[in-house]
């Protein structure tokens, strides 16, 4: 009890010591709390992203004999349901089109019946061209391409059970985003990742009911029961499950405002809604929960994501804890003074240890609690809306508990070692560090070098591992993460930190050499600064390392984030093709590029994407204009195997019949550059014509190309050989603002073109982790790095002032002008600042590169060149300089309060 009283007494009677310790711990705790809250908030982002493209939350499958209108009324009555729209689907066994006496047939597909308001409500099945009138259909682009039909042509559909139905094509419909509802709904097919049909015809509900459903026997099944799922090896897994020929459904949209942000909680809520509706339905229908299926993999993704976010913030947390060490340095005098006082009152060494460790624990707990409050404030300010949605109270309690325990324990441990050393020292010990003590254990054991070598080994052995996106059964990209990918950066970081400390200590030991240059720059004050730094070797080394690591931490996070954004853009460019893509509703030729050119558009190029046949296999042939394409689309060397981007384009230019083939095609058909390839390409009428090409190079990626099999050839050659000069779309590079360019393009091309831009594509292709905007985390990490730099340097300067009060008073007494004394403090700040910032940027860039390995698999292609955000890095350096200026101002203020006569009076 007496010791506890002394402990509390120590905390209260040494307010500066306690406050300094409190600030160090509070910063660490605030950073941990806010990063954990970012992780919690990211749950909302991930949930929102997972459901963003989901136009239909649930498919209510009606049992035979169930009245659609009665079921719709039952479903719509649930408070969570926003709308329930009828949707009927019938499989067809084949579709045939006869033109000019020759018949073209395609295989299986589906006929869909929709309400007039369905497309408006869901955004699905929008018409790219034409209209759908009674007795007419709009067909998917694939069906049109496969049959070679144009509006006005009739198509005969062979229905399950033997009947047929004939419809006239009146438009083209987009089936983008409809995979889940067009594909099989049974668990077996979905688990196998069964493909959705691409041959799709859309008509009114009444046409489907009267002319199709009535002709299909109730027991008929789809003739494609083995619509297999893609397996990881690229093959097809047969699925032995019956898919009925007809499905009558209600498509349900839920009120997303009621949906909890956390994926797990959201799934539980969806489950509750399903049970509630099914209970009322009493077996008349079955609820297929598409939303829940989309959220299924997210809980695991999110857990990995949170590990990643904490990992990115880990150096910051370590740095904040390192402040505890600087605090111990800064308050060493006060510790010694108080220890002497207690010794004089009869305290034993054990008592002293208990009192001081108790005070450290008390301030650590207080600082941790203070940090939780500050971190909660920061987290709420940055991600308030998402936090509320993800569960504010539970998130806060969890983050607060983790941050308090973690920082209290770690900060106590971080402060304990220097404290033990201070208590061992004699009270009258000199304040200077002139003695050459034995090097610390880690230096003698070369742990820094060992950690770096181990990191290098792990980096090489685990190369390429990291986060790997895979498509789940619902078609959503999900991620798996290799733990080993965290090991290398962790070892690099810890080994690098220790090596930096070793090197900086060695350099600072020689800082007397700075006497002359600093003297020239700052006068006698500069010379004093150099000598003072050499005298405070350990403390100076520590603060330079803390500053360097703070800068390194901020730099690595900025490099990581910039590369992450760069790859998001590259990914989007690969998917979209360029900044802008304009797809014509009616046939258009390459001359349309002239219509698009103008203000806001830097360059345009025509592009053809046609389904062709290499042997029996359908592939995408990309026909390009080699003269204009490079001005529109950035082609990376990594896109090509055995050639650079320029080399591949030169090869296409050199031979009109040159063709680039995908690695998969080259492997499957055992072809090498120079080989002849005969490909069946559709002409204007849709008839396949054999065209000869010569293989030039292998293309691994190409803008707009699918990931597996594709071909790239000259547009002029393909047009001339097939007599088909229609283009698929135009690509354009924006001149300045993307949105303005998109508007200008839409205005110039008119309503017959659909213009999409990179901005919307970036959001659409994001997977569960990459959908999280890292800017909040970057802001947190960089902000705390700057704060740590400022506090670290301020503590060093204040500790220096505390140690050198008499020395500075002597200087003033023998005639140092105020500016000369200030110059000595400025000189120390300059040396510490320049050394810290320069080494920090260099090591930060290196750490940033190793961090990229973690995300090597997220982007396709992986980042081969990291992005260095020069502007942001410069801004960060300016902010750090301002922060050092603030630390300097604090020190100057403390300097101005020194009473010269008071200090010189012998105590």
């Amino acid at each position, binding site marked *: 009890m007496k010791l506890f009283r002394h402990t509390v007494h120590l905390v209260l009677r040494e307010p500066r010591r306690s406050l300094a310790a409190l600030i160090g711990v509070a910063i660490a705790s605030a950073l941990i709390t806010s990063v954990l809250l970012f992780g919690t908030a990211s749950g909302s982002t991930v949930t929102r992203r997972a459901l963003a493209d989901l136009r239909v939350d649930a498919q209510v499958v009606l049992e035979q004999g169930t009245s659609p209108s009665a079921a719709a009324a039952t479903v719509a009555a649930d408070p969570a349901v926003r709308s329930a729209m009828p949707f009927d689907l019938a499989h067809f066994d084949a579709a045939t089109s006869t033109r000019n006496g020759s018949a073209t047939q395609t295989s299986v597909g589906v006929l869909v019946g929709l309400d007039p308001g369905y497309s408006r409500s869901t955004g699905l099945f929008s018409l790219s061209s034409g209209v759908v009138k009674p007795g007419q259909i709009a067909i998917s682009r694939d069906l049109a391409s496969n049959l070679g039909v144009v509006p006005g042509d009739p198509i005969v559909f062979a229905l399950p059970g033997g009947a047929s139905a004939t419809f006239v094509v009146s438009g083209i419909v987009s089936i983008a985003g409809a995979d889940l509802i067009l594909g099989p709904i049974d668990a077996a097919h979905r688990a196998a990742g069964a493909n959705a049909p691409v041959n799709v015809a859309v008509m009114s509900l009444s046409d489907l009911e009267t002319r199709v459903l009535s002709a299909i026997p109730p027991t008929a099944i789809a003739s494609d029961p083995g619509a297999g799922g893609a397996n990881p090896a690229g093959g097809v897994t047969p699925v032995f499950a019956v898919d009925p020929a007809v499905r009558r459904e209600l498509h349900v949209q839920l009120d997303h405002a009621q949906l909890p942000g956390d994926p797990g909680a959201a799934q539980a809520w969806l489950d509750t809604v399903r049970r509630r509706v099914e209970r009322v339905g009493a077996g008349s229908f079955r609820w297929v929960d598409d939303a829940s299926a989309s959220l299924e993999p997210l809980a695991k993704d999110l857990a990995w994501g949170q590990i990643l976010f904490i990992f990115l913030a880990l150096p910051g947390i370590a740095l904040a804890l390192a402040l505890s060490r600087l605090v111990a340095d800064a308050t060493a005098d006060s510790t010694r003074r108080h220890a002497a006082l207690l010794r004089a009152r009869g305290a034993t060494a054990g008592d002293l240890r208990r009192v001081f460790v108790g005070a450290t624990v008390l301030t650590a707990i207080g600082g941790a609690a203070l940090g939780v409050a500050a971190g909660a404030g920061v987290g709420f300010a940055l991600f308030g809306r998402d936090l509320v949605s993800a569960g504010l109270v539970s998130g806060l309690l969890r983050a607060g508990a983790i941050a308090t325990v973690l920082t209290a324990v770690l900060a106590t441990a971080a402060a304990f070692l220097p404290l033990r050393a201070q208590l061992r020292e004699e009270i009258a010990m*000199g304040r*200077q560090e*002139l003695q050459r003590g034995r090097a610390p254990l880690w230096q003698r054991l070369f742990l820094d070098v060992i950690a770096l070598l181990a990191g290098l080994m792990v980096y090489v052995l685990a190369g390429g591992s990291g986060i790997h996106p895979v498509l789940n059964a619902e078609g959503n990209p999900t991620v798996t993460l290799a733990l080993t990918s965290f090991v290398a950066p962790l070892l690099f970081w810890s080994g690098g930190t220790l090596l930096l400390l070793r090197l900086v200590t060695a350099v600072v030991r020689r800082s007397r050499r700075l006497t002359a240059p600093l003297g020239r720059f700052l006068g006698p004050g500069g*010379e004093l600064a150099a*000598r003072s730094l050499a005298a405070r070797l350990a403390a100076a080394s520590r603060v330079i390392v803390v500053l360097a690591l703070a800068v390194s931490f901020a730099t690595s996070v900025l490099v990581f984030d910039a590369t992450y954004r760069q790859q998001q853009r590259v990914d989007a460019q690969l998917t979209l093709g360029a900044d802008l893509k304009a797809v014509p509703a009616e046939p258009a030729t390459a001359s349309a590029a002239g219509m698009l050119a103008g203000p806001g558009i830097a360059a345009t190029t025509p592009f053809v994407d046609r389904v062709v046949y290499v042997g029996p296999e359908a592939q995408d042939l990309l026909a390009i204009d080699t003269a204009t394409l490079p001005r529109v689309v950035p082609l990376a060397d990594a896109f090509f195997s055995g050639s650079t981007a320029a080399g591949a384009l030169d090869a296409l230019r050199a031979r009109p019949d040159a063709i680039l083939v995908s690695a998969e095609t080259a492997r499957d058909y055992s072809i090498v550059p120079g080989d002849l390839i005969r490909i069946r390409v559709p002409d204007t009428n849709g008839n396949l014509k054999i065209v000869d090409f010569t293989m030039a190079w292998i293309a691994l990626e190409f803008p707009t190309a699918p990931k597996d099999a594709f071909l790239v050839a000259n547009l002029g050659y393909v047009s001339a050989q097939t007599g088909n000069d229609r283009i698929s779309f135009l690509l354009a590079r924006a001149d300045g603002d993307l949105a303005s360019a998109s508007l200008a393009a839409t205005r110039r091309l008119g309503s017959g073109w659909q213009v999409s831009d990179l901005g919307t594509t970036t959001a659409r292709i994001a997977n569960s982790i990459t959908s999280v905007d890292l800017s909040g985390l970057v802001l947190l990490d960089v902000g705390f790095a700057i704060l740590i730099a400022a506090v670290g340097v301020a503590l060093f300067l204040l500790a220096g002032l505390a140690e050198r009060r008499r020395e500075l008073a002597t200087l003033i007494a023998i*005639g*140092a*002008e105020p500016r*000369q004394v200030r110059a000595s403090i400025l000189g120390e700040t300059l040396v510490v600042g320049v050394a810290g910032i320069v080494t920090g940027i260099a090591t930060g860039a290196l750490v940033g590169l190793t961090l990229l390995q973690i995300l090597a698999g997220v982007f396709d292609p992986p980042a081969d060149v990291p992005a260095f955000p020069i502007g942001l890095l410069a801004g960060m350096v300016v902010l750090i300089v301002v922060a050092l200026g603030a630390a300097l101002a604090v020190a100057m203020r403390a300097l101005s309060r020194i009473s010269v006569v008071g200090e*010189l009076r012998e105590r």
Partner: protein
Amino acid sequence: MRVIEARSLTRRFAGNGVEPVNAVDDVTFDITAGSFTSIEGPSGSGKTTLLGLLAGLELPDAGSVRVLGHDLGRLSAAERARLRVRQIGIVFQSFGLIASLRVGDNVSLPLALAGMLQRERRMRSLAVLEEVGLGAAVDARIDELSGGERQRVGVARALVTDPTLILADEPTGSLDEANGSDVIRLLVEAVRRRGSSLVLVTHDPASASLADDRYQMRDGRLTHGASA
């Protein structure tokens, strides 16, 4: 010629919740050029505060002081610092040496502050160190010296600019009797050689007895003459 003219000098300190105390109370005295003056008094009598006022380290709450013709109250902090570095040498009881600097660098510090070049600084500091018998210790570390040697370094630093006025605050206070008398002898001889004025604050009557002029200080008040 007077090097110091103090008129009704008063310096007041406010304590924690107690009435303000006059550490220096209405002190008036003059010191002439080339003289050796001692100010005696017990601890807490205000001697160091008075010395601080004479050195321009603090400004009086009342009264005025002219040092070497300059009214310190009218000078800025920088001007007072320049006056000290060029014309006033100070010797401290606790030596006032900077442990991170070698002996020679400590001695040449006032010259560095005055902007003198390194080479000239070294020559002058070596000369004055030889004068105090420590020429061989120019590159020694402070912690390698004894107490007496440290104070001789302190004396050398006070003398290195050949100041007109030397203020010594209990220079023997941290030394044993033998070392103390050596240091005083050294200091007085060096001052006499230069023709400078010396103000010695001390509570040691033996040191004070060497002075040309003696003052006593009690409770902030200064009286002329030796103690009874």
